[in-house]
């Protein structure tokens, strides 16, 4: 393999390599990572936790490709899940609740999109403000209460099989991956994120791209909210304060650059898995809780450094 080719491959799969190394490490270092029975902790990560983180990271990726941030995802989850919860508790009709969630998600997405595309407010400010507005409304709706009376059918739809979350997430991830890599819309998103003026000059309807992206974003968040309340069995306005950070971390660790125009669904998936394996693994390793955050920071720095080092070696020796 030529030097350049090797480097390309390496760059492309380096994050996957990090993930694999982490999995190998934790498999060796702890007994409970794979066991006992039912794939042990791995099944927790893959079936219970990853679907949520990955969905959030996909939302974030979409916005980051467009050179923005979404700080409002946590609050949006809070508001949408509260609204859906209220509908559920009033009607016991899961489909109506899901519909409510999707409509609300779409509305939130479109409002964000209009503010970003037409009013041209930076995404950071839009979502920073929305973060307060949405959570505020969620609080107004529910105050300090929770809603947990969802009727007999709702939770069964999602929790009767332990694979449901994973499957639903996979469907959305595949759809989004397809949308981003194989459709005209996807190309428009990357073009707009790379160079907005050039995109406009090429006949791309930049404003529509923004609105569509935020709309999609809102829909995915709405869907995620439904999954969240199904999983938690409750809807409460305080959920998700750390979601933006979690999602940004997963996206970045997955290798998506914040400079816009690059980033893939697969990055989001790998990044989320890396973060989850790390946090889970450390609990299993018995790392004291205070140390866990330090370790996460250190491992990020280490893995970037290692990547650099490997790159250098690959340049010098191959």
């Amino acid at each position, binding site marked *: 393999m030529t030097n350049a080719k090797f480097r390309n491959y390496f760059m492309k799969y380096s994050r996957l390599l990090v993930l694999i190394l982490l999995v190998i490490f934790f498999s060796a270092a*702890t007994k*409970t990572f794979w066991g*006992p029975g039912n794939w*042990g*902790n791995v099944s*927790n990560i893959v079936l*219970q*936790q990853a679907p949520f983180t990955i969905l959030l990271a996909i939302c974030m990726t979409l916005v980051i490709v467009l050179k923005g941030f979404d700080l409002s995802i946590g609050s949006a989850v809070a508001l949408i899940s509260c609204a859906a919860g209220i509908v559920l508790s009033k009607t016991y009709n899961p489909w109506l609740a899901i519909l409510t969630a999707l409509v609300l998600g779409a509305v939130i997405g479109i409002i964000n999109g209009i503010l970003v595309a037409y009013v041209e407010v930076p995404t950071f400010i839009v979502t920073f403000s929305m973060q*307060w507005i949405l959570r505020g409304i969620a*609080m107004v709706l529910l*105050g*300090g*209460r*929770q809603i*947990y009376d969802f009727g007999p059918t709702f939770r069964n739809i999602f*929790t009767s099989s*332990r694979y449901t979350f994973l499957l639903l997430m996979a469907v959305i991830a595949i759809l989004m991956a397809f949308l981003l890599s194989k459709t005209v819309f996807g190309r428009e998103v990357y073009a707009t994120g790379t160079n907005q003026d050039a995109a406009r000059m090429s006949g791309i309807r930049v404003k529509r791209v923004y609105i569509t992206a935020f709309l999609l974003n809102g829909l995915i968040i709405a869907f995620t909210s439904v999954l*969240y309340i199904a*999983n*938690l*069995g*409750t809807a*409460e*306005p*305080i*959920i*998700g304060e750390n979601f933006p950070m979690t999602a940004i971390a997963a996206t970045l660790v997955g290798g998506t650059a914040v400079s816009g125009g690059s980033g893939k669904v697969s990055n989001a998936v790998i990044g989320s898995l890396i973060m989850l394996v790390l946090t*889970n693994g450390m*609990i*299993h390793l*018995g790392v004291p*809780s*205070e140390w866990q955050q330090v370790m996460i920071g250190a491992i990020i720095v280490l893995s970037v450094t290692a990547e650099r080092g490997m790159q250098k070696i690959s340049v010098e020796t191959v």
Partner: protein
Amino acid sequence: DDSAEPAAASAAPEATKEAAAPEETAAQTSAAEGETDQDLVGKRAVLLVKKLSSSYWTELEAAAKEKCEEYGWTMETLCPVTADSNEEQIQLLEQSLLDPPDVYLLAPADSEGITPAIEKINEAGVPIINLATKITGEGLEYVTFVGVEYYDIATSAAQALVELLDGKGSVLILEGTTGSQTSTDIKAGADDVFAKNSGITVLDSQPANYQRQEALTVTQNLLQKYPEVDAIFASNGEMALGAAEAVRQAGRDGIRICALNCSEELVQAIADGKIAFTADDVSWKMGEQAAVAAMDYFKGVTMEKERMQDAVIVNEDNLSEYKAKYGIQ
């Protein structure tokens, strides 16, 4: 309880305020002597809470408000936008001092951290009824502390759990927000009880920040790590419910979960058998008693330094009472 005179007593509040603001706590008796029952109406109280995003605090607020209204007082609530923010609490109090109320009912997020604000209130001479978290700063004055001892609640809950387990079994602990006073107290209380019972092994103790979502994932991990778990001690209701969900999903039915706090959802969960019992830290009672203490102060009743409330263990024995309280069938 002596109920205050009804509406007739809307005597000029300004004047009342002047008269009712004693220079310092020591002067309370003499200051209060001149007051008639009439003067006790129309006072303005300010309640400072840590947050309003949990039923613990909304119940506390509602109870305090109800009592105040019963007395013919008005009550404003201050609450930081960022939950549990000491910094914002100080700012809120400083702002409220622009137009000082007759009495403060204060639940500080940090027992020492609130000091700068308390100093200013002391300076302004407004009486303070401290609730929930004790003000510990040096040289600070307050009328009385209405609260519960989390260490004690945790001990009684842990003790109840030990009894439930017949003195032996392995336990997981879910801690609250690292570094918060309540979390530290609860952890200490539980640890002490479990340490005394040699049959009990504490397998692990992890923080889940008082949040359900985090408790769910942390418990998922811990259940995976420990195939033999008999009970989970959760430092609040939210985490207990999260843990219950994780237990249900893992199909580990035998695990007993105990919680602190009380809410409609928790009571329902106990009724459904998802949670074994909870130690109600009676926030509503604190709210109510804070107002009562304020009234007592204005009346000139000699005040104890503390008015501690007892936690109530909610289990099958008294479940029906609680069900009635929340209107659960």
